[in-house]
């Protein structure tokens, strides 16, 4: 699984390839619902998180939760304040609900942990995903190193988003 992640040292700003790296060894382990919990940071399903919340909290490791892209706002609010990583499932390239979920998590619910795009994640979406607040991407196919270049394809961004609180006209002198 090719994982791309924003460097910890990178400031929050519009996408550029130098702010991202390909991660070879991910500290997080994705755990199936019927698998035993190993030591270390784990990503579990929402149902497992709910069922074993106390057990997970007692382990002294970080908790990540994998959620569908139609997770309701009240659930997002609850998760935003209680876990370190949220992995949002992108079922298809065409289904854009994850983008609004990410915006809500960052702006409305103040989520500061890692927001990871999983599922159908292709290089040509990375810049949009990064702008709405994702900072890690499990690429579903292709070379992660090649995909980094996509962050530099467009350097002009008219809108404010999760990466940039101001629209272009408030950031730059315009004609």
């Amino acid at each position, binding site marked *: 699984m090719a994982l791309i992640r924003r460097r910890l040292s990178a400031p929050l700003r519009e996408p550029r390839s130098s702010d991202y790296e390909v991660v070879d060894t991910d500290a997080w382990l994705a755990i199936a619902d019927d698998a035993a919990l190993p030591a270390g940071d784990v990503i579990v399903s929402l149902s497992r998180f709910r069922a074993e919340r106390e057990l997970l909290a007692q382990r002294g490791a970080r908790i990540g939760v994998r959620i569908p892209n139609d997770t309701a706002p009240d659930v997002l609010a609850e998760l935003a304040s209680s876990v370190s990583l949220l992995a949002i499932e992108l079922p298809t390239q065409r289904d854009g609900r994850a983008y*609004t979920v990410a915006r809500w998590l960052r702006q409305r619910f103040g989520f500061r942990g890692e927001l990871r795009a999983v599922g159908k994640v292709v290089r040509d979406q990375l810049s949009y995903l990064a702008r709405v607040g994702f900072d890690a991407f499990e690429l579903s196919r292709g070379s992660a190193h090649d995909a980094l270049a996509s962050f530099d394809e467009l350097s002009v961004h008219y809108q404010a988003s999760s990466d940039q609180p101001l629209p272009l006209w408030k950031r730059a002198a315009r004609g």
Partner: protein
Amino acid sequence: MYRYDEHDLRLVQERARQFRDQVARRLSGALSEEEFRPLRLQNGLYIQLHAYMLRIAIPYGLLSSAQLRKLAHITRTYDRGYGHFTTRQNLQLNWVRLEDVPTILDELASVEMHAIQTSGNCVRNVTSDPFAGVARDEDVDPRPYCELLRQYSTFHPEFAYLPRKFKIAVTGSRHDRAAIAVHDIGLRAVRDATGGIGFEVFVGGGQGRTPVLATCIRTFLPERHLLSYTEAILRVYNQLGRRDNIYKARIKILLNELGAAELTRRVEEEHARIADDEGLVLTDDEIQRVARHFEPAVYEQLEASPTIDGLVLGKDRTLARWVEANVVGHRTPGYAIVQISLKSERLPPGDATHAQLDAVADLADRYSFGRAVVTHRQNLVLTDVKISDLAALHADLARVELASPNVGRVTDIVACPGLDYCDLANARSIPVAQDVAARLRSLETEQDLGPITLNISGCINACGHHHVGNLGILGIDKLGEEFYQLTLGGDHTETAAIGKILGPSFAATEIAGAVERAVRAYLALRTDRSETFLAVVRRVGPAPFKEAVYGAHSTPTQRTAA
């Protein structure tokens, strides 16, 4: 008109480069067609029956002469020497090669144009009133707001994968020439008692297989909230719009399923959270900055004579007929708004040849400050012509077969490309338009039929806007044969209405005759020449038209399911 600054220019250049790379990856096989599809669609590139089709954005329909010449050059160099203006003020090229598209985008970027988001499930080209800035009934020039929306929606990261396409139209006049009632968001700029500008906000209009007129959800949205409110609507739609069935995915269906009150409540709730976000709230300075690009032309002080009315009554009857149908009063004395009909005997509706595009560019330079506008009825407009130049302009237009005196008349037919080009179509549109026009041209000349809108769509997707034509024709497929339904009473203006199906459908050879019978019925029913076709339909209802259309001509085969 809006001139790009360094940022706008860099973006379209980078976009061309990005697309060149995507095309290369597609051609090498690195991208599957399934993966490439949403990417090319975000760039207006479709696969049609015979070739790729590229849809070029013309924001709010406004073109400079330099842009027209570039479009002429592109049709000549990369296509077959003509282009097709669409009902959303864009231009389509029907015969491009995939390999050439990146170069076409470079050419477009060189004149501050692009094909960004002319397709795909994203915010499409923002359309507007072709008379913006010169109309006598205008309260507010809508174009600065269109441009603000264009920039806001261009590559908006959150809304590139909406449930379905999303169309916005803006007008600032009392007469609606932008068809805002059939858009996902329709905005009408108005002034309040203190002169402050705001918008009436309509949501959930659309055509296709479920035609719906938009519902007003805000009567006065202050202009500073134009973007925040748009964002709230888009966010609610992106979250809740259906994704299980593309025919039920437009916001009109969401509005219907939730109810207008609940949709409004959700939009207002989201808006309350973001209304004061500094990333979204417009300032007077920013609105003024963009508005400065749309300052009125520097008009001459002209004599009161000649007048448009004088020309209509003049001895040159060819000129008089053209002026009467195609020329509209301007807000500045001595000037006129000239509509150029793209509905001639020779070309499909909305088509223009490269030579005509070049000619319009020259005429725009000579007579109208180097600007032209595309209309959603697939014609062109020169907005600032001296009345004293009308005769000369008419003669120049006639030399390039652009002097059809029929704008707003029944032969000014709006039609989609239909089965001659389109992958989705069930039936041909262009030959039907040509048949109907040929049949009605002499009647129109002899009888002064007045304004009648006639729209033809080759399938239920309704790109020809047949639902809102006074007369609408819809092509359908019955067991492999083309049939045509006739609808009556549609209206795309401020008195918008969806046309109603008149009766059983007609074979391709019979539809033109049916239209003629409907038009002749109108002639018999009108009280005098001032009573328009639509006014008669509204006064008498469909029954007399039905009788005239079907009376002696119906046969059992036509009576099968509509």
